[in-house]
């Protein structure tokens, strides 16, 4: 069968250091797939290889069966692959609506239009507003991004990714830096996303992972150790060792 996202023997070396070691990962369409692993396991490097921010040393990345290994980031986005960032990458001096409208315009192929003002593209603004409503950001639509609390800014991260209407969404620690109460709310919002959006989630908080994911892959030292259902992962000896080891080290 065809997967929403697939890697084959993906390797990334930085000098002598192997950050991604022969990763073959399959994400089924519609899945809620989580990628976990201790600090420094290479989770973000893997995301960067998937999105095209980094080029792999060898191996292939397939999106809906199509080889996208050599495609630049923006063309993968056009093919339905969107991401959020572990550390916010937002437009500090734009309002929330401006930011999301910018993203919507790009997806609609209006990004290079240079004559009529943004405000005249009513359908794009309308779509951006719908997204803001979905993420409960509508009341701050005209606020500057930098004036908002961190939790709200995390939601803008997600809004910008959703504006690309992705079929495959990579969430890189969406709740990082968000207070516990707000992170529950954030995950409720993510859980409500329709199933035609496949999600690959990187997360540290095991509670959240086990409640959200229906499939979990464990990454250690750049390589995949095991992939299974949450129930099986919870019982897995190797996984316990890895996390116990980290707890003892830390």
């Amino acid at each position: 069968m065809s997967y929403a996202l697939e890697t084959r023997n993906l390797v990334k070396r930085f000098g002598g250091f192997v950050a991604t070691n022969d990763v073959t990962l399959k994400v089924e369409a519609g899945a809620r797939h989580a990628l976990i692993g201790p600090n420094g396991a290479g989770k973000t490097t893997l995301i960067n290889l998937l999105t095209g921010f980094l080029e792999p040393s060898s191996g292939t990345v397939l999106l809906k069966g199509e080889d996208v290994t050599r495609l630049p980031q923006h063309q993968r986005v056009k093919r339905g692959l969107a991401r959020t960032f572990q550390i916010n990458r937002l437009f500090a001096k734009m309002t929330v609506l401006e930011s999301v409208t910018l993203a919507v315009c790009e997806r609609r192929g209006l990004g290079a239009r240079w004559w009529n003002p943004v405000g005249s593209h009513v359908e794009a603004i309308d779509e951006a507003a719908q997204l803001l409503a979905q993420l409960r950001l509508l009341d701050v639509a005209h606020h500057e991004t930098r004036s908002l609390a961190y939790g709200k800014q995390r939601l803008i991260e997600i809004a910008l990714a959703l504006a690309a209407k992705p079929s495959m969404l990579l969430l890189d620690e969406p709740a990082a830096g968000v207070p516990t109460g707000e992170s529950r709310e954030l995950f409720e919002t993510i859980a409500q996303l329709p199933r035609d959006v496949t999600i690959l989630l990187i997360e540290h908080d095991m509670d959240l992972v086990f409640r959200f994911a229906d499939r979990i892959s464990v990454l250690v030292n750049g390589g995949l150790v095991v992939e299974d259902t949450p129930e099986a992962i919870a019982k897995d000896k190797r996984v316990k060792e890895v996390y116990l080891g980290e707890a003892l080290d830390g």
Partner: protein
Amino acid sequence: MTTTTLAGFDPAPLQRQARWKRAEYAFWLLPVAAYFAFGDQLALLSQIAITALFALSLDLILGYAGIVSLGHAAFFGIGAYTAGLMATHGWNQPLAGLAGAAVIAALAGFVTSFLVLRGSDLTRLMVTLGVALMLFEMANKLTHITGGVDGLQGIEMKPILGMFAFDLYGKTAYIYAMLVLFGLFWVARRIVHSPFGHSLRGIHLNMARMPALGTPVNARLIGVYTVAAAYAGVAGALLTQTTQFVSIDVLSFPRSAELLLILVLGGTGSLYGALIGTIVFMTAHHLLSDINPQYWQFWLGALLVVVVLFARDGVMGGLRALARRLPGAAK
């Protein structure tokens, strides 16, 4: 067509941005007032209009796209020589000269944009500087074409559209330069408020995010660099046509550096900052060099330091801060 389907949501604040404000209408009455008030200074006023267009060009790439350039005179010079050489070879219709200068400068901008895309801000600064230096020395060396340090002479312009001849008092020249400035300002204003201009701001604010939105960042930067080069070329052509002479100074490093100074003084990323910076700089230059022809740059330096330290975003930033404090006076 200004409403959306979402109940209780008002998109107006976003849509208002592109609308002309009252202060803008008032601003554009200044050139008209200046024509009557300073009728004996039209040569200076034409210079201000031309430099303002040049500064506008730099604002497009620096203020909006975030590309720092120390060699923008390259395109100004290319435009100036193009218009000059066209005129000395029998193409002396002014508007044809402007068009020719725009096309050649745009071409040069397009080609060099690929160099500018590479590397960090410092690399870009050096590349723009290097390109301008090379062009300067080429113009210096190719004396049989450019006239070298003696300048390009023997330029005679036909009346504009066959109707408006350049006169001794510089009336036609001033009105011509000002109309071109206004027309191109109007176009630039549309560009910066369009989705394209919006995406440039996005690139400036967060370059790393844009590819994740699906934006071909390089294509956008090539686009704006090419347009800005055309603008600079037209400014250069205007100088040639209104002074009927091309000095090798059009390509000089001080011209590029001065331009950067003007833009920082006025404030980047608002278009009006470029215009106001030019007015302040040229007027200060004029007045200060009258008082003290040798050391006028001392006061200019002092002014620059004060503006950069105490008024962020230059004169425009200061004006905006002032407008916020006087809520009644805003808009």
